[in-house]
């Protein structure tokens, strides 16, 4: 069973979310930067476009200013005849195709005392035809017309607001008027104006030719904010930018308009009047006329590339994200599938099933290592358990062996209940490990008691077996009526034969003649027993100089004898007694044993053995016993 919110899910989510955020951030940042760059580019080029278009318009208008200016200079310089004026004007109109009409309009009676109105006017009608009229009448008092009055009152040349030509139909015009003066009686007096009516058709054509993206456009407003050219012809001359602002309830547009007619160069955000799209509006002044040229740059169209790019990037990111997600899921699964399988396998192991199949992981990564380690662990565990079982059985066998070993030692005391001529007691406290100590006591015949104590070199089963073999050999050899020396020699020889383990055993063997109290003994390398004399105390039994049995097949064993008086005894022991160590590593020692025996001298064998064992155990209090402790005591009582 897979746990809820498992590793795969978390890993997938984490990686996907982080990856998504990273990709999203990159796309957003890219879009932001691109947009900023593009916007800056667009704004720069928009400004350039508006400025250069305005400059172009300005240049054309300036060029048309020259002729009226020239004529006004002539008029101020000197006297002139009517016909000369007409020629001047006619030439002006003829030679300047953009000049639609021209006049020199005089103040009342300024040209001629008899004429209140004098304004010869040449103008184009149709294709190339130039007509002439004298303007001014009581019905058309030109003195209060803008083209006449404004330059007069301001005292300098001006461009009029654009207007539709009253006679010529739909020709959009603007008039450039230059005032001229004459000095009369020392006074510079306003005398009239020279005008040029300039058709603005070229302006409309020029501006409508400016194409910005698909729906962007250029337009022109007059000094009054009146729309002079615009792709929406219904606005032209009918609306001002301010009336549009009012109609659209857009105070921002009004502010833009005010900025424009103040002759500012600027950039504003507004909406296209064609399709209401959000747009940039850049504007630049046409200084001679006070007009302002605006260019509308539809935002979305111009940023279309950027928006498309962002859209494509988002799409790619989304597709990439999906692919990424798939890969993450696959990777996460490939990681967690073996992990899940391992988890399942370890549950099996915990349940004790070591045979469960392990997932196959071919990768060499951490998961692979884990799986391999797990495999090794399973294998080792299996082996360990097998060994553990084996050990258990060995221990069991050792226990059995120990019990057998123990059982082969005489354990029943007194061993010969009907004999009162001697008392004997022995005990062996085995160490944890199977040891090699043994003792034995047996009646060789009615009057001879054999006692033996030995210590096999080494520990464990081989020692135990060697001990058993030694004891058996000794017993059987002892019964064959050989001398003690021969007996030990025979046992030694037998032990040496086939002693592939190169083990040996220290052995003390004594035969007590129960009638005389004579103790004949031989010692093959064993610690010297103590003789406990009732009269004289504890003495070490004299050694015989023999070496341990099983070491050298030619070894010979000397025999000695001593005589026990009634009440005398001997104490046999193994080095487990004297070499027992306390927690500080202090040995129990020969001295202490001798002292111990001294204290208990005279007591029965059982009491002696128990006392010594107790003392040793007190010495080794709470310290692990690392060798068998074996002790045997004999007290002779004359028959």
């Amino acid at each position: 069973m897979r746990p809820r919110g498992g590793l795969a899910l978390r890993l997938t989510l984490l990686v996907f979310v982080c990856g998504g955020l990273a990709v999203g951030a990159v796309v957003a940042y890219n879009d932001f930067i691109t947009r900023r760059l593009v916007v800056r580019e667009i704004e720069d080029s928009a400004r350039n476009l508006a400025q250069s278009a305005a400059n172009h318009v300005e240049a054309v208008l300036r060029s048309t200013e020259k002729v009226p200016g020239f004529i006004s200079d002539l008029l101020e310089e000197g006297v002139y005849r009517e016909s000369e004026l007409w020629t001047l004007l006619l030439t002006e109109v003829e030679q300047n195709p953009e000049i639609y009409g021209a006049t020199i309009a005089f103040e009342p009676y300024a040209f001629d005392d008899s004429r209140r109105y004098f304004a010869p006017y040449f103008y184009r009608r149709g294709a190339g035809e130039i007509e002439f009229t004298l303007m001014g009448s009581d019905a058309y008092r030109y003195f209060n017309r803008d083209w006449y009055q404004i330059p007069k009152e301001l005292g300098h040349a001006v461009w009029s607001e654009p207007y539709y030509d009253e006679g010529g139909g739909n020709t959009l015009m603007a008039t450039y008027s230059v005032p001229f003066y004459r000095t009369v009686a020392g006074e510079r007096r306003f005398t009239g104006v020279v005008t040029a009516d300039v058709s603005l058709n070229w302006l409309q054509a020029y501006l409508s030719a400016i194409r910005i993206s698909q729906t962007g456009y250029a337009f022109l407003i007059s000094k009054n904010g009146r729309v002079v050219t615009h792709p929406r012809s219904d606005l032209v001359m009918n609306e001002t930018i301010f009336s549009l602002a009012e109609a659209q309830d857009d105070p921002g547009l009004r502010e833009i308009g005010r900025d424009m007619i103040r002759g500012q160069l600027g950039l504003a955000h507004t909406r296209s009047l064609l399709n209401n799209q959000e747009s940039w509006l850049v504007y630049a002044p046409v200084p001679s006329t006070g007009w302002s040229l605006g260019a509308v740059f539809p935002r979305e169209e111009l940023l279309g590339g950027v928006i498309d790019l962002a859209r494509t990037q988002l799409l790619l990111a989304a597709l990439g994200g999906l692919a990424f997600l798939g890969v993450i899921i696959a990777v996460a699964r490939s990681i967690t599938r073996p992990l899940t399988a391992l988890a399942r396998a370890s549950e099996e192991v915990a349940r004790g099933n070591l045979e469960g199949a392990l997932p196959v992981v071919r990768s060499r990564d951490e998961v692979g290592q884990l799986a391999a380690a797990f495999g090794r662990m399973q294998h080792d565990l299996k082996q360990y358990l097998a060994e553990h079982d084996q050990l258990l059985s060995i221990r069991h066998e050792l226990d059995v062996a120990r019990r057998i070993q123990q059982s082969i030692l005489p354990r029943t005391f007194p061993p010969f209940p009907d004999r009162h001529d001697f008392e004997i007691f022995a005990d062996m406290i085995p160490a944890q490990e199977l040891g090699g100590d043994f003792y034995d006591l047996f009646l060789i015949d009615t009057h001879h008691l054999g006692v033996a104590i030995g210590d096999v070199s080494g520990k464990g089963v081989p020692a135990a077996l060697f001990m058993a073999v030694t004891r058996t050999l000794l017993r059987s050899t002892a019964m064959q009526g050989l001398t003690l020396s021969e007996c030990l020699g025979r046992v030694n020889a037998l032990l040496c034969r086939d002693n592939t383990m190169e083990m040996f055993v220290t052995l003390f063997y004594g035969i007590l003649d129960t009638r005389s109290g004579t103790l004949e003994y031989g010692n093959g390398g064993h610690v010297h027993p103590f003789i406990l004399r009732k009269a004289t105390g504890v003495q070490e039994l004299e050694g015989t100089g023999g070496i341990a049995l099983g070491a050298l097949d030619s070894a010979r064993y000397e025999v000695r004898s001593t005589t026990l008086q009634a009440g005398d005894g001997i104490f046999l022991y193994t080095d487990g007694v004297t070499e027992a160590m306390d927690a500080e590593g202090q040995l129990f020692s020969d001295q202490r044993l001798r002292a111990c025996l001294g204290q208990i001298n005279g007591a029965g064998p059982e009491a002696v053995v128990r006392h010594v064992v107790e003392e040793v155990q007190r010495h080794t209090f709470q310290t692990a016993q690392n060798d068998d402790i074996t002790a045997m005591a004999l007290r002779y009582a004359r028959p």
Partner: protein
Amino acid sequence: MSRCLAAVIIAILAGAATAAQNEPSLAPATFLPQWTPQAQFAGFYIAFEKGLYRQQGIDLTILTGGPDRSASQSLQDAQADFVTLWLSTAIQMRARGVPVVNVAQLVQRSALMLVAKKSSGIRTPADLAGKKVAVWDGDFRLQPEAFFKKFGVKVQTVPLGPSINLFLRDGVVAATAMWYNEYYTLLSSGLNADEITTFFFDAYDLNFPEDGIYCLQETRSKRPQLVEGFVRATWDGWAYAFAHPDEAIDITMRYMAAAHVPANRVHQRWMLARMRDLMMRKEGEAAPTATLARGDYERVALQLQESGWIDRIPMFTSFYQPPPGT
């Protein structure tokens, strides 16, 4: 087949002709507003379009006014049965012996005003002293001149033409303007209201009511029903126009287009709203009034006499003859 079709067409045409002949009770009449079509005359156009004149038994023809067609002359020459005129114009005509009669006074308050740019430092009438002020000619001069006299300021007047550009270009510091026209032109030329100093003449005890409906005494006497019907229908037209400004402006714009007059919807909206203001005797009144107040009449007449434009003041009762029931 084609013969059948022709027969059907003839029948339809005959039917139409018969129907036209079947309205014998409609009295033909002509009306000439004193200027080109604009919302200043919206009530008349609406009344016409809504058939209100027909309902009053009038088969009205609205003539197109403008600078080329003087309303006062047309009335005098009986080329129009009804015209709108300024009160001052009509009093002068009456004083000259032209038998014009006021049958309804529409505009109760002067729309004529003086405007100045605050930037030129003009705040009070006294600030105008010695300055160039552009003033329209004719009847438009009456109030400004009285105004300057009243405040004892000597100004340098400049004749103002049909456009206000002279003022916009700072050729003069002040100019006459109509509240519903030139003042709006200033706004729509980028000047803000708070940048303009205004002198409304009615605020200086120089309120001269303007547009009224006039006819000749003869019409008033001989065709009283026509006069009453015309005034009633016109009044209802104005009421409808104020109640339905968008529709009124649509209709007005159509008339403007037909007369080839530049049309600007927001301007016309402004003008219609100002007409409503001006047709109230006082600001904030509930409803417009169609009567000519004797006090207003006398103020204008006295000023005309004082300015030497008329010799004698015509009798109010013979000048103002509203049809009964209006």
